[in-house]
């Protein structure tokens, strides 16, 4: 029973307690707050599992943006809390509990039976790390070995954005999304929104930049920059561009298109799509990441903002 194990057990119990509370509590708003806390605790677990990249992503995406999204939704839906009262009966709840417990038991059995010399692709990845010219193996996997997944990743985010925008009313199409805030421009939030973003942008770019060799990367950096943009708009100092804006659409589309262009260029220079010529891997990867940054920042922020709600000021 080393000290580390004790900490792990404590953390695990804390997380399970928080998850149970989030599910069981009656009031939805409290449940959302519980979920945000749960997300941040989960970041600690990733640190304990020595996976810093994932910890950063979880903190930024799981705790931060998802939390903002859910808190916004919970605040607006608080009034409908009373209407939906019919909680399923005892029998349904017990049956659901039994089924969930069976699934958990099966999974636990599988976890305990995982093979001991755990099969891993780490040696293979480490061997070929040199040719990708990137120090951080996770970034190497993301942008070299399995670059198709990352491209599809960006396309998933864009399609989700199209889906969210398709939910606008026809009369608001081409208008601007809105954050439901009632901040006054002289208040403390405006002051906060003037001080934090510059530092935030530096931190975001820094995380994006060191992603090549140390834990970090474009997703985490883009999330931080998106958060800063949301903060500024939330404080009322700026507002979202209209959906039909040309530069907005070009920037949104630029990331994947540049990625594909470099990918197809790979046929000529390195004999396969998404292959990098020897020696030029790092600059190309950086070019792709730089192209993807604006796409991700805009897309993630607009996903939180939701469908366009009002016509652009003529």
């Amino acid at each position, binding site marked *: 029973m080393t000290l580390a194990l004790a900490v792990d057990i404590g953390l695990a119990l804390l997380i399970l307690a928080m998850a149970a509370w989030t599910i069981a509590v009656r009031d939805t*708003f409290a449940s959302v707050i519980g979920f945000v806390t749960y997300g941040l605790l989960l970041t600690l677990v990733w640190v304990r599992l020595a996976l810093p990249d994932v910890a950063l992503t979880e903190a930024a995406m799981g705790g931060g943006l998802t939390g903002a999204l859910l808190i916004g939704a919970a605040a607006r839906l608080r009034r409908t809390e009373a209407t939906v009262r019919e909680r399923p009966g005892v029998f349904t709840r017990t049956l659901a509990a039994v089924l969930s417990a069976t699934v958990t038991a099966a999974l636990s059995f599988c976890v305990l039976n995982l093979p001991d010399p755990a099969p891993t692709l780490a040696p293979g990845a480490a061997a070929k790390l040199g040719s990708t010219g990137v120090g951080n193996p996770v970034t190497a996997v993301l942008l070299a070995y399995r670059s198709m997944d990352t491209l599809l990743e960006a396309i998933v985010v864009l399609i989700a954005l199209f889906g969210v925008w398709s939910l606008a009313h026809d009369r608001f199409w081409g208008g601007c999304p809105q954050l439901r805030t009632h901040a006054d421009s002289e*208040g*403390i*939030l405006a002051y*906060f929104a003037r*001080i*934090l973003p510059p*530092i935030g942008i530096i931190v975001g770019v820094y995380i994006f930049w060191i992603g090549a060799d140390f834990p970090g990367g474009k997703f985490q950096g883009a999330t931080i920059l998106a958060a800063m943009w949301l903060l500024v708009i939330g404080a009322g100092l700026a507002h979202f561009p209209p959906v039909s804006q040309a530069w907005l659409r070009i920037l949104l589309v630029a990331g994947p298109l540049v990625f594909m262009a470099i990918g197809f260029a790979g046929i000529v220079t390195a004999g396969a799509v998404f292959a990098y010529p020897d020696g030029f891997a790092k600059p190309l990867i950086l070019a792709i990441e730089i192209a993807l940054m604006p796409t991700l920042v805009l897309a993630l922020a607009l996903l939180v903002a939701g469908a366009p709600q009002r016509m652009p000021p003529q």
Partner: protein
Amino acid sequence: MKIALDIFTIFSVMAGAFFFLAGTVGLLRFPDPLTRLHALTKADNLGLGLVVLGLLPQTHWPLDTIKLIAIWLFALLAGATVGQLMACTARRGGGQPK
């Protein structure tokens, strides 16, 4: 010298933990939102300060130390802003009935 620094770290982190405890007790015991806010922002920020202070000697100089201090400053900034905002909302009575 190393031992002295270690002892300093232990004590300072213990003090920090104590202030966190005080803040949490304040959160649970105080009657209305404003007092609870007061307890939280004061105690937790101080606790965090002490913890950071305790950890300073453990980190090697240029980069990590600055990062640690920056974390504390961000926490202060965020705590103050959010505290002030929640206080305004609480005063206007628009907040949670609880």
